[in-house]
């Protein structure tokens, strides 16, 4: 049976009173990720907002075992956990690497790529708040075109986001998926599925950030939904090379494949205050082309 809000497991592994900002999508996503793993995991976290969430010695706000590891080393740390458990003959524990976009797209890509090439048996989840939010919002490889940040303060970012999921797909790993914190049940189902697969599994989760993206705390879910409705985020999974649209992206495709205009998404957030009409048009073309590709690739429509 598919998960819904009524039948979803009640037990929590994130404890109330943690350090995340109000309306934090990362916290929401992590909550459902740990539900899908039923706490039977060992987590490794690099420097990131997730470090903040985990708390300060000697108290942690998370009820699963976790090792914090330096920024560049997440994939290798997860490798070490897997190798150690295997060497000791310990079974039934999922190793979860949980890193932000800076820790994944930028400084952590080497250790992640190495681990994926070795087909290490862990789930790697990148929660993408599209910038170095923990240090106060500087540009990352995942900051979108046109977004103002601490290091693109005047003109906004002049480059497109790096498509990390495509990079991971190219590693030939058995499972990659894109998710959004605004669709927690889709995220839950994907993590649950990933849990049953062997090898490196990569999930990318879009996690809107109210203080970094400059929108009200209460709008986190709405902003994430708009990203999906405009096609800026497409929810899909690729299992052993089979591409499927999922959740709201699948419904949109089935209902004729129309997207909402991207403009609405950009005017809803303060970080796009300097975006130009040309950039919006350029991004609309980019979104349309990619959506077409996704519709073409989808095997489940």
């Amino acid at each position, binding site marked *: 049976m598919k998960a819904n809000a009524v039948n979803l497991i009640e037990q929590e592994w994130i404890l109330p009173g943690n350090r995340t900002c109000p309306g934090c999508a990362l916290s929401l996503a992590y909550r459902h990720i740990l539900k899908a793993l039923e*706490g*039977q*995991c*060992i987590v*490794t976290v690099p420097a990131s907002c997730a*470090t*903040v969430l*985990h*708390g*300060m*010695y*000697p*108290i*942690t706000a*998370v*009820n*699963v*075992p*976790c*090792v*914090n*590891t*330096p920024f*560049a*080393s997440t*994939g*290798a*740390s*997860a*490798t*070490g*956990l897997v*190798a*150690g*458990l*295997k*060497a*000791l003959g*310990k079974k039934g*524990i999922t190793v979860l690497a949980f890193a932000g976009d800076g820790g994944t797209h930028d400084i952590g890509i*080497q*250790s992640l*790529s*190495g681990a994926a*090439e*070795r087909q290490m048996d862990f789930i790697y989840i990148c929660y993408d708040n599209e910038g170095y939010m923990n240090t106060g919002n500087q540009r990352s490889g995942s900051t979108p075109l046109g977004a103002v940040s601490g290091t693109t303060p005047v003109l906004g970012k002049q480059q497109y986001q790096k498509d990390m999921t495509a990079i991971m797909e190219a590693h030939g790993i058995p499972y990659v998926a894109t998710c959004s914190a605004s669709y927690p049940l889709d995220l839950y189902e994907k993590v649950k599925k990933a849990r049953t697969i062997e090898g490196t599994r990569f999930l990318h989760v879009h996690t809107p950030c109210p203080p970094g993206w400059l929108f009200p705390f209460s709008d986190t879910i709405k902003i994430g939904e708009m990203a999906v409705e405009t096609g800026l985020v497409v929810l899909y999974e690729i299992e052993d090379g089979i591409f499927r649209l999922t959740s709201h992206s699948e419904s949109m495709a089935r209902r004729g494949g129309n997207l909402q205009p991207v403009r609405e998404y950009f005017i809803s957030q303060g970080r796009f205050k300097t975006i130009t009409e040309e950039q919006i048009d350029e991004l609309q073309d980019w979104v349309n082309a990619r959506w077409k590709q996704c519709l073409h690739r989808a095997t489940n429509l």
Partner: protein
Amino acid sequence: MAIQRKANIHILDGNQAAAIAAMMSRVQVIAAYPITPQTPLTEQLSQYVEEGELQAEYVAVESEHSAMAVCTSASLVGARTFTATSSHGLAYMHEMLHWAAGARLPIVLACVNRAIGAPWNVLNDQQDSISQRDTGWIQIYCRNNQEILDTIIQAYRIAEQVFVPVMVCYDGYILSHTEMPVDVPTQEEVDKYLPHYKPHTVLDPAKPKNYNLVTLANPRVGVDGKLCHGYMELRYLLQEALQNSKEVIVKAGKEFNQVFGRDYANVFWEDRNEDAEITIVAMGSLAMEAIVAADMLREQGIKVGVLGLRVFRPFPKSEVVQALRKSKLIVVFDKNISYGSEGATCSEIKSALYGTYINAAVRNFIVGLGGRDVKARELVEATKKAIASLKETVVNPDYPEWICEI
């Protein structure tokens, strides 16, 4: 107390000796990245694993930074871990070296000492490991291939008692690629000496602890109401562990003798120091060359002894002072340089002597960088030069002399 045991002599180079030692220590996770001159060691270990001779996970990582990250995380789930590297590899590992020691994980690393660029140079000096002096690792240096094998086995015994990682250093090519007779122990002997690794804590979903969280400057009360450390108290405990490790190192060396018949109950090797007026200090294989130099000087009627440093961290201050108490002149040869100052071992010696009754002159020579051959004859000449310099008015020169052709 020497024990009766049958020798089992093999002709081994240093890397082979290290690989055998790691295998016999029953390491469970090995993560390494190839770098000259360490490469044959990693190849040998991967062969042991692929042939099933060693039951371990061999992870061919994509960088040395990752090698140490694999070791730290594997160690935290309770596995005995090993890695090896040289030069740039060790430099690239630097951040993770701090984390291994800071998290108190008993990892053993073989450092095959090599020069660091720029410019490229694959040959021996000790700049690599000396540059990692302050990462919180125990550092032990070997003089020959027997010591490499013996020290790696001892390193696990030490590391797993004091929960501090140990770096076993040996000179690239001079030891790593040079064959020597090595007495290889039996697995039963090693098992008798080295108990299973008992971690002080492990990652386990049944008892969900978190490690290496952000830690405040000041102590903080935990969920059980107990006052826990601040960052500074945790740093103090690491320093305390290194201070106390000296005793453990000597004890592990003494107990080694009881099983294997080779005595390591020391922090340095001494040669003819009892009546020496002049002491040559050197570390690693250079200490062997210094013995040859001492022979030559003794033939010329100069009373020379040798102090071959074995344990560099923790630095054995009081033992060094005791050993140098009769010396009028101390000549320190360093295969490293702290730019703008002097050789690292020379600084340590001077620091140890300060405030004691020993008022010996100290002379420092930088030698053998980037594989430059160091001949016993050169050590003799340098020592004579040091003796002659005592007649000059400068008590202690500001900077070291270099044995090179500039």
